[in-house]
């Protein structure tokens, strides 16, 4: 999965606004615990992905997110001793010891899993919708080397994937017994180092690492920049407000408490609306 420019308001927005938008959604996922509110955050992220023309990317990220969510839920149910409602008694298990699975631990695990889903989907949205070259420009005045390293890591991924395919094909062409995994790993590692050296040489001859701070580049804010920046602020304010004023309550231990009040529903609806409103204006999205 990598960035590719598409005709969508999110792609048309400046990387700073796109970054802020994705960070705000991630913060919402971390700040909110109510199942209704967290569900709204996931819906907002997936909705934003679809509205940005990234439905395929969202679908590709979903299996990983859901698998991780299930693993988190299972692990939490097995290792957490809290909760009053025992649903399964597993007795003495190796490593884990005496294990009772409680309803509260299971539900809390599911909430943690839902949060992981939100964060992974948000990461997928960021990767596919925010231009990494723009991000490099954004952060390089603060920490050029770190920003470039991160951007290059993204750039190297497809190159290394192609290398891995080539290596696999070459080994399929070998007659007789295939080489050991250790030999293959060694060859793959050497290949990666060679690639990294090539890229490092290319960076040197393009002037990377030259002393002096790069100049700042100013650009006027477009309607999409403003819309996504405003959306990011709104999502963040709503999440903080819900947390501070306890509008999206949830507690798992010792017993479940997740009241669905009018305030919770209002916060959930407002989150989805604030996140998706910037997509309503599609003027000037095609470069």
């Amino acid at each position, binding site marked *: 999965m*990598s*960035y*590719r*420019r598409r005709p969508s308001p999110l792609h048309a927005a400046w990387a700073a606004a796109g970054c802020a938008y994705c960070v705000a959604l991630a913060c919402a996922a971390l700040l909110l615990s109510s199942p209704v509110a967290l569900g709204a955050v996931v819906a907002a992220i997936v909705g934003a992905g679809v509205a940005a023309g990234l439905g395929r990317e969202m679908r590709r990220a979903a299996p990983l997110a859901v698998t991780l969510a299930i693993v988190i839920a299972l692990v939490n149910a097995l290792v957490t001793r809290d909760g009053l409602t025992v649903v399964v008694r597993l007795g003495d298990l190796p490593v884990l010891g005496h294990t009772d699975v409680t309803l509260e631990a299971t539900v809390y695990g599911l909430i943690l899993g839902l949060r992981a889903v939100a964060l992974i989907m948000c990461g997928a949205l960021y990767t596919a919708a925010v*231009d*990494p*070259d*723009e991000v*490099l*420009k954004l952060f390089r005045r603060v920490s050029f080397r770190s920003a470039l390293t991160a*951007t*290059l890591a*993204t*750039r190297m991924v*497809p*190159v290394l994937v192609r290398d891995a395919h*080539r*290596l696999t*094909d*070459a*080994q*399929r*062409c*070998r*007659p*007789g017994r295939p*080489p050991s995994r250790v*030999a*293959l790993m*060694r*060859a793959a590692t*050497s*290949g990666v180092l060679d*690639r990294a050296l*090539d*890229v*490092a*040489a*290319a*960076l*040197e*001859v*393009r*002037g*990377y*690492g*030259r*002393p*002096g*701070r*790069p*100049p700042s*580049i*100013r650009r006027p804010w477009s309607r999409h920049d403003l819309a996504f920046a405003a959306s990011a602020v709104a999502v963040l304010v709503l999440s903080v407000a819900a947390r501070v004023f306890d509008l999206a309550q949830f507690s798992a231990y010792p017993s479940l408490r997740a009241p669905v009040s009018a305030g919770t529903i209002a916060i959930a609806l407002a989150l989805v609306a604030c996140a998706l409103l910037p997509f309503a204006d599609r003027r000037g999205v095609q*470069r």
Partner: protein
Amino acid sequence: MNGEVLELDRVSYWYPDAPQPALDGVSLSIGAGELVVLAGLSGSGKSTLLRTASGLVPHFHGGKLAGTVAVAGMDTRTRTPAQLAAYVGTLFQDPETQVVMNSVRAELAFPLENRGDSGPAVARGVEEAALALGIGDLLDRPTSELSGGELQRVALAAALAGRPSLIVLDEPTSQLDPVVGDELIALLRRINEDSEATVVISEHRLERCLSIADRVIAMDEGRIVCDAPPREFLAWACAASPALATPGARLLQGLGLSPAAGVKAARAALRANGYDVGDAADRDGRADRRRPAAASRSKPSRDAALRVDRVWHEISRGPTILRGVSLSIGRSERVALMGRNGAGKSTLLRHAAGLMQPTRGRIQRAGRVALLLQNPTDYLVHETVAEEASSAALASVGLAAFGDRHPRDLSGGEKQRLALAIVLDDEANPPAVVCLDEPTRGMDRTHKHELARLLCEIDAAVLVATHDPEFVAEFADRVVLLADGAPIADGPAAEVLSGGTYFATETARILGGAGGALTPDQGIGLLQRAEVPA
């Protein structure tokens, strides 16, 4: 700076832990606006010399440097490659690893921003570099979606964006098809003429670039062995280093004439000496052209080693790579598969070897199909050459004495031969067909000749995808020309390679395809039979 853009004074250089110097007492000076071609066999020191000019030697590679290197009057010891980047634009062989950003626009802006240019200056520099290289329509494309030729143009534009006074290019056309390669060379000449930038280019296919060069520097074992204008260089090469002589030069030399650089000059030299090239072409060529090699579907043979029957390869939600290809290859036939990048050559080889399954059509094989893919290093996974293949297989490719060496320490040509030994190495199940994908990339003429000899000795059908018509002329009985996933010509090498411009040998182009002569020896024979010089 007194008009010299690059000056080397008694420069010797040793890579870390290397006992022998890669450059050995090199002194030269290259002036502003010169277009210089670096010639030499693999390992002669060409790439090291270019890396010395860009400052990568010694700052990036380490090692020991003796002597002085000055770029635009600046000592490279005291300037890093990043600082020199404002004066030297560098282009390497592999376009994939020298493009570092995600969009073409960002790639072109990157060197300018590193230099500290203001926003408007960066924007203007990007536009100008894009226009100069004819890639304006690519500016907003992601670099991951570009073809090899497009990537190489983008990398060249990035190297030129800062208007460097010196441009160094290390075999920039080795991964490009003949059309794109020739376009790139022509582009370099235009840039050299328009901006008076000094260009130093290292290239194995000298016939491609000698006609545009002002000067040729030949290297051997890290030393400069010839530094002369193209014509004098060719005369020297014919006498002292035949592997560096172009086919055209060998043709003229064989006829007792002075070598000339380029097709136009060679034809003029022939005419001036009484060989009427036009007449020879008309007389011997017209007959051939009346029966063009247009058999887009070869007749199936009962004794075929490989039979490809109406094979399609269609990518889901993507392009069609092969469009109903039919091909039949006899048991000891040697076939070259040619065509532009993206024509479907590699895909067809993968289908032949069973690495891919056709979406329609079928493939019949008389036995095992051995496939050597483009990068021989991908096959090398063990610690010694002896572990990679049996001693018999190593002996068959001339590597019997290399058993104790590490495979990655071998030269490019040796790696290619080792990989060939690996895919052939199955005594119980010898291959019925041997397929090779672009085996001559970055190979000098000596190694190509060795490989062609090896392919002629293999007791199996041979199918080679290549861009190199000179190599094809050495080994192939038959040539299949692919375009847009379908064969557009299929016939004897003499027919297919003598009729065109891009997919033709230099001899064929000089003789206008007369008599189907592809190699200098064939050309000499034809001309000596046809004409008596005045």
